[in-house]
C-alpha cells in the first residue's frame, strides 16, 4: 500500500521532483547551525534582494540628472502607488543590510571563523562589506536633497586626501571631470549596475568556498561538524531560512509603516548654506574622527584618512595577523578585548557624531573620551576574563563538559550590548564633565551628565549581575532570581 502523504509533503515532493532541490549539490547543514546567528550573512543577502526588487521599481521613475533627480523622487513620493512606502522600505533595508553585514563580521571575528582554512572567505566577506558601504555612499546622493548633496560632497572632497593609489582610483570611479551631471550619473551607474554586479560575483565566490569548507565548528570544540547531526538543505534548512526571511521582511514593513521617510528640501545654491553636512549613521564614526581639531591642521585630513584606511586594511588581512589556532573565546582575551573596544568605539563615535553635528572636537577632549572609553572597556574585559578563569578552574575540575548550547551566543550578545551601551555612556559622561569644567553649565549638559551617569551605573549593575549568573559550563546565563529574570531558558 503506498505511503499516504499530507498536502504540504505532497507539494514539497512535487517541487523537489521537478527542480531537483534535494539533489546533493549543497552539503547538509549541522543541526546546531539552525540558529539565527549563523544566518546573519544570509539575512543581509535577503535585504539585498529586497533592495533589488524595490530599487528596480524606483528605477522606473527616477531620472539621474541634477535638474530632475529631486523632482522625480518627489514624483515617486506623491504620485506612484505606495511610492513613499517603497522609498522607505528601500532605505531601511539598506540600513538593515549594513547592520547585518557588520553583525555578521563581528560574530565571525569573535568566534574566529577567519582562521584556517577560511582566510579567503573572510577577505571576500570584507570586500562584500565595503561594497555594501559603497551602496550606502552612492545611494545617498541620488535624491539630490540638500543634506545628501552636502554630505556626499564632503566625502568626495576627502577622496583627494586618501593615500595613493586609492585616491586616483576613487577619483576616476566617482568624480570624473564633467561636473554635477556626470558625477550623479556615475553614482547612479555604480549604485544600480557596477556595485550589484561585483557584489553578486563575490557572493558566488563566497558561497562556493562555504560549500567547500562547510559551516564552522562551534568555538568550544565540544561539538564538531563530524559528530553533529546534519539536516538536508532542502526542505528543512530552506524552510528555516524562509522563516527568518519572512520575519525580517515583516519587521522591515512594520518599521517602514511606523516611521515613513520624509523628503528633505532640494539641493540648490540657496539651500546649501542652511544644511550642516552630516553623513548617514554608518559613516558618522569617520565623520567624528575627522572633526577632531588635531586633524584641522595641514596634512591632518590625510593623516586621519590614512589611519581609517589602515584600519580597513587590518580588517581585511586579519586572518594573516591573528595566526593562533585556538578559536575558544575563553582563550583569546586580547583579541576579544580588542574586538569589544572596536565595537564600543564605533558606537561611541557614531553617537557622538550624531549629537554634535558640525562641531569641532578639541583634541584633549577627544583623547580623554576615546582613550578613557578604550581603557575602561579593556579593564572591564580583562577583569571579566580573570573572574571567569578563576571560576572556570574551580568548576571544570568537577563538572564534565556539556554540549554547546545556544545560550552561549545569547550571553555573548547580551555582554556586547552592555559593552556598547557602556561605551556610549562613558563617552557621554566624560564629554559632559569636560564641557562643565570648561564652563558649559547649560541644562542639556547637566542632564546629559546625570543621565549618562545613571545609565552607566545601571550598565555596571547589569554586567555584574550577568557575570554573577554566568554558568561557565554552558556559557549561558542562569536564571535564579525571579524578580531579575533575564528571560531565556536554563540549559
Amino acid at each position, binding site marked *: 500500500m503506498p505511503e499516504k502523504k499530507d498536502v*504540504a*509533503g505532497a507539494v514539497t515532493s512535487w517541487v523537489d521532483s521537478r527542480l531537483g532541490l534535494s539533489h546533493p549539490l549543497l552539503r547538509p547543514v549541522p543541526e546546531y547551525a539552525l540558529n539565527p546567528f549563523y544566518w546573519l550573512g544570509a539575512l543581509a543577502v535577503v535585504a539585498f534582494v529586497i533592495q533589488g526588487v524595490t530599487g528596480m521599481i524606483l528605477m522606473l521613475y527616477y531620472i539621474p540628472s541634477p535638474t530632475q533627480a529631486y523632482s522625480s523622487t518627489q514624483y515617486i513620493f506623491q*504620485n506612484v*502607488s*505606495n511610492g*513613499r*512606502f517603497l522609498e522607505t522600505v528601500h532605505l531601511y533595508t539598506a540600513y538593515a543590510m549594513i547592520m547585518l553585514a557588520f553583525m555578521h563580521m563581528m560574530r565571525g571575528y569573535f568566534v574566529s571563523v577567519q582562521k584556517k582554512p577560511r582566510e579567503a572567505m573572510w577577505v571576500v566577506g570584507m570586500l562584500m562589506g565595503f561594497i555594501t558601504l559603497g551602496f550606502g555612499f552612492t545611494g545617498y546622493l541620488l535624491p539630490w536633497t540638500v543634506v545628501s548633496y552636502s554630505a556626499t560632497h564632503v566625502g568626495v572632497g576627502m577622496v583627494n586626501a586618501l593615500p595613493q593609489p586609492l585616491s586616483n582610483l576613487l577619483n576616476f570611479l566617482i568624480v570624473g571631470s564633467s561636473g554635477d551631471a556626470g558625477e550623479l550619473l556615475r553614482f547612479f551607474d555604480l549604485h544600480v549596475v557596477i556595485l550589484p554586479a561585483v557584489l553578486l560575483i563575490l557572493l558566488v565566490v563566497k558561497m562556493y568556498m562555504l560549500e567547500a569548507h562547510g559551516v564552522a565548528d562551534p568555538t568550544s570544540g565540544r561539538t564538531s561538524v563530524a559528530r553533529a547531526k546534519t*539536516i538536508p538543505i532542502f*526542505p*528543512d534548512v530552506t*524552510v*528555516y531560512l*524562509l*522563516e527568518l526571511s*519572512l*520575519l525580517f*521582511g*515583516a*519587521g522591515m*514593513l*512594520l518599521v*517602514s*509603516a*511606523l516611521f*515613513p521617510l520624509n523628503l528633505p528640501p532640494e539641493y540648490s545654491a540657496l539651500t546649501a548654506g542652511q544644511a550642516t553636512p552630516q553623513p548617514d549613521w554608518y559613516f558618522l564614526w569617520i565623520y567624528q574622527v575627522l572633526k577632531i581639531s588635531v586633524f584641522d591642521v595641514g596634512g591632518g585630513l590625510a593623516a586621519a584618512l590614512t589611519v581609517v584606511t589602515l584600519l580597513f586594511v587590518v580588517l581585511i588581512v586579519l586572518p594573516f595577523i591573528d595566526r593562533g589556532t585556538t578559536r575558544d573565546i575563553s582563550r583569546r582575551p586580547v583579541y576579544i578585548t580588542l574586538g569589544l573596544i572596536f565595537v564600543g568605539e564605533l558606537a561611541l563615535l557614531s553617537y557622538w557624531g550624531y549629537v554634535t553635528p558640525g562641531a569641532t572636537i578639541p583634541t584633549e577632549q577627544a583623547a580623554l573620551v576615546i582613550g578613557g572609553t578604550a581603557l575602561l572597556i579593556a579593564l572591564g574585559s580583562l577583569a571579566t576574563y580573570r573572574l571567569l578563569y578563576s571560576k572556570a578552574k574551580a568548576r571544570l575540575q568537577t563538572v564534565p563538559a556539556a554540549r554547546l548550547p545556544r545560550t552561549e551566543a545569547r550571553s555573548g550578545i547580551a555582554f556586547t550590548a552592555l559593552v556598547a551601551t557602556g561605551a556610549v555612556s562613558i563617552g557621554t559622561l566624560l564629554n559632559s564633565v569636560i564641557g562643565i569644567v570648561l564652563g558649559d553649565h547649560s541644562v542639556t549638559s547637566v542632564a546629559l551628565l546625570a543621565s549618562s551617569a545613571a545609565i552607566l551605573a545601571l550598565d555596571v549593575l547589569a554586567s555584574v549581575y550577568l557575570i554573577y549568573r554566568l554558568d561557565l559550563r554552558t556559557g549561558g546565563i542562569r536564571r535564579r532570581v525571579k524578580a531579575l529574570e533575564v528571560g531565556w531558558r536554563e540549559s
Partner: protein
Amino acid sequence: MRISFLSVQVVFLIALQLTSFILLWAMNPLSQSATNTFALYLSMDLVAFTILSYIYRSMRMSREPSRAWTSVGYLAIVILLVSNLTLA
C-alpha cells in the same frame, strides 16, 4: 474524525492570509493611511506564513512545535491587527 489543534491553526492561518491578501488588492495605494494598512496587513501575512512554515518544519523534523514560539507569532498578529484598526 478527530480534528487536531494543529490542523485548526493551519486552516486559520491560511484563511487569515487569504483574507488579508484580498484586502491588500482593494486599497487606494496613494494615501498614507492606506499605505500603513497595506504594510501592516502584509506584515501580518508574512508572520502567518512564518508560523505555517515553522509548524511544517517542526513536523518534518518529528518535533512538537513550541507553544511559546507560536504564541509569540499569534501575539504579533494580534498586535498588527490592532495597530491596523488604530491607524485606519
